[in-house]
């Protein structure tokens, strides 16, 4: 029973991580219909940024965190300006291939600078955060992931619903020409969506780094796991991304715990294929109906 509850907690916190990462993905997709294959590398860049700031430059942790957030925000702007702006009219496959190329580029760059080793952050989460409940040990990082996950997801929920920039983004995602004709600054929305996506990736990457250690290959592989999450939840739905993330996190952890650890890596993809066959638009996605 304890094992089950332990796995449950672990699955939920990993699921929150996936949900936060998927949030960025859905945001980019909603505003510009681009499947971002470089998502894993955005995660890794956030994690490494924090590593450089906290370990090598020895900045105090909150400052390092803030700088990481600011830095990834800026990096999202830069990526959008440099690489995606020239491709605005092109076919979608070109943009997707561009993100694939960007993924390879970033991965190579990070491997070049940091090598394939596993790094570890200095211990900075307060030990008092660990919860002990009977025989169940919840380590501080899971609690932190819960808390940060809930905070950021609610922030973004409010942002999209009530702030003007959020409403602009939703309008561009809904109908780009209409938004243009109403005076929404579409290019700014694109840039902002990439910047926010890079920001959430940084957060997710940092927490992931605390959980499993920072290694370029592992974190980039995590980025590809975002795909089952968003497909399960629906490519256009932010709430769906959250629920999809939790489900996939739970599924993965339980498979790892009860069946085998090798199967753990591939189970999200099997679920993905299954969902695509049964309900391709996910739980909350918009169904495209075509009549010929």
């Amino acid at each position, binding site marked *: 029973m304890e094992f089950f509850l332990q796995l449950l907690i672990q699955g939920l916190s990993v699921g929150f991580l996936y949900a936060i990462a998927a949030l960025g993905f859905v945001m980019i997709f909603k505003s510009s219909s681009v499947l971002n294959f470089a998502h894993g590398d955005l995660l890794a860049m956030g994690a490494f940024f924090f590593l450089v700031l906290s370990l090598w430059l020895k900045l105090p942790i909150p400052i390092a965190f803030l700088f990481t957030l600011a830095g990834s925000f800026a990096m999202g702007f830069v990526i959008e300006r440099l690489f995606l702006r020239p491709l605005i009219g092109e076919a979608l496959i070109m943009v997707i291939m*561009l993100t*694939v*190329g960007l993924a*390879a580029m970033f991965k*190579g760059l990070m*491997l070049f600078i940091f090598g394939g080793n596993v790094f570890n952050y200095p211990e900075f989460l307060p030990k008092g955060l660990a919860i002990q409940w009977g025989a169940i040990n919840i380590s501080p990082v899971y609690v932190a992931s819960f808390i940060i996950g809930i905070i950021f997801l609610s922030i973004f929920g409010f942002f999209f619903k009530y702030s003007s920039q959020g409403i602009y983004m939703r309008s561009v995602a809904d109908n780009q020409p209409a938004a243009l004709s109403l005076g929404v600054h579409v290019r700014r929305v694109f840039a902002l969506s990439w910047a926010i996506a890079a920001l959430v990736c940084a957060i997710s990457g940092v927490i992931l780094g605390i959980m499993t250690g920072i290694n370029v290959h592992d974190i980039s592989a995590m980025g590809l796991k975002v795909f089952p999450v968003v497909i399960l939840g629906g490519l256009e739905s932010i709430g769906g991304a959250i629920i999809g993330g939790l489900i996939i996190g739970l599924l993965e952890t339980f498979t790892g715990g009860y069946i085998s650890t090798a199967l753990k890596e591939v189970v999200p993809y099997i679920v*993905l*294929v299954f969902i*695509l066959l049964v309900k*391709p638009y996910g739980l909350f996605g918009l169904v495209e109906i075509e009549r010929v």
Partner: protein
Amino acid sequence: MRKLKLHPCGKFNERYEEELTIFSTDFGRLWMWVGLFLLFVVIPFICKPYFLYIINHIGMAAIAAIGLNILIGYTGQISLGHGAFFGVGAYAAAILATAVGFPFWLSILCAGFITALVGMLFGIPSVRLKHLYLTIATLAGQFILQYLFVQWDTLTKGPEGILLPRATLFGVDVKGDRSFFYVIFVCFVVMTWIAVNLIRTRYGRAFIAIRDNDRAAEGMGIPIFRYKLLSFAISSFYAGFAGGLSAYYIGSITPEPYTLMLSIEFIAMIIIGGLGSIPGSVFGAIFITLLNEVLTHATGFLMNINALTKVAITIAPLREFVFGLAIVLFIIFEPRGLAEVWRIVKSSFKLWPFSY
């Protein structure tokens, strides 16, 4: 002998057949014969074995790239699973050769057909899915197949891999770079001929219609599900065939090379070469294979300079970086690829001195 038409003054097609020909003038046909002569008579004898090794790899990659171009460039279905299908072909050929004892040519052909079946299996989601969802489905397929390569060890012997027997064709031992050169490039010529002619038939036109607007294609009466499956099958056949050839060439296969990186390499080949053009796939295959070789050599070269050894070891991941950079730069600056560059060069020669 009929009169050779070398320099036309314009396009005056009087019959439908003239519109459909592959070479619009005899100039192209002459160069084709020259090219075949060079390929089969001159190159094997003047090149060092290492160059033949590279050229063999280019040949096998080109066959797979042509298959992928049929799927992505002509039918518009983006597939990220091509590397895994290449691996399926390699494993199928290996298993047929070792466990069942098929001869060389039969095991490669059957590997192609088995891969076509697997490809059709992964194409089945395409009936309900559009572009993005199909891409993700093929990505999942890549990972699942990779997992199966390693875990299904009763069939594939897991991470140890399979050792293939010597290839024999018509009783002659095919070993060494030069004999494989002939085998590979005969296959390459045949497969290219099939692909080019496929595009001219109604299947090719159906593929292009599906790429351009599949709702309109369905409305015109093309059963798009059947043709999408056919496209998957054909491109997987090419990948499996090339995989089988590479299995025999390398001699022993392990699950390592058939990763997402290989799929991305194939996609890079056709994007850099030019989507929707057969010569483009060949150009792309040449470019990417040479890029890999240049990077490996640069790393090796720098390793030998003792002062820079440490730098060289860290340069190895730069291969991935340069790769990604090549894709990104080509997409931003020349999205139609090397085929477009070739076309512009050709037409500027033809139109000289009006080459602007």
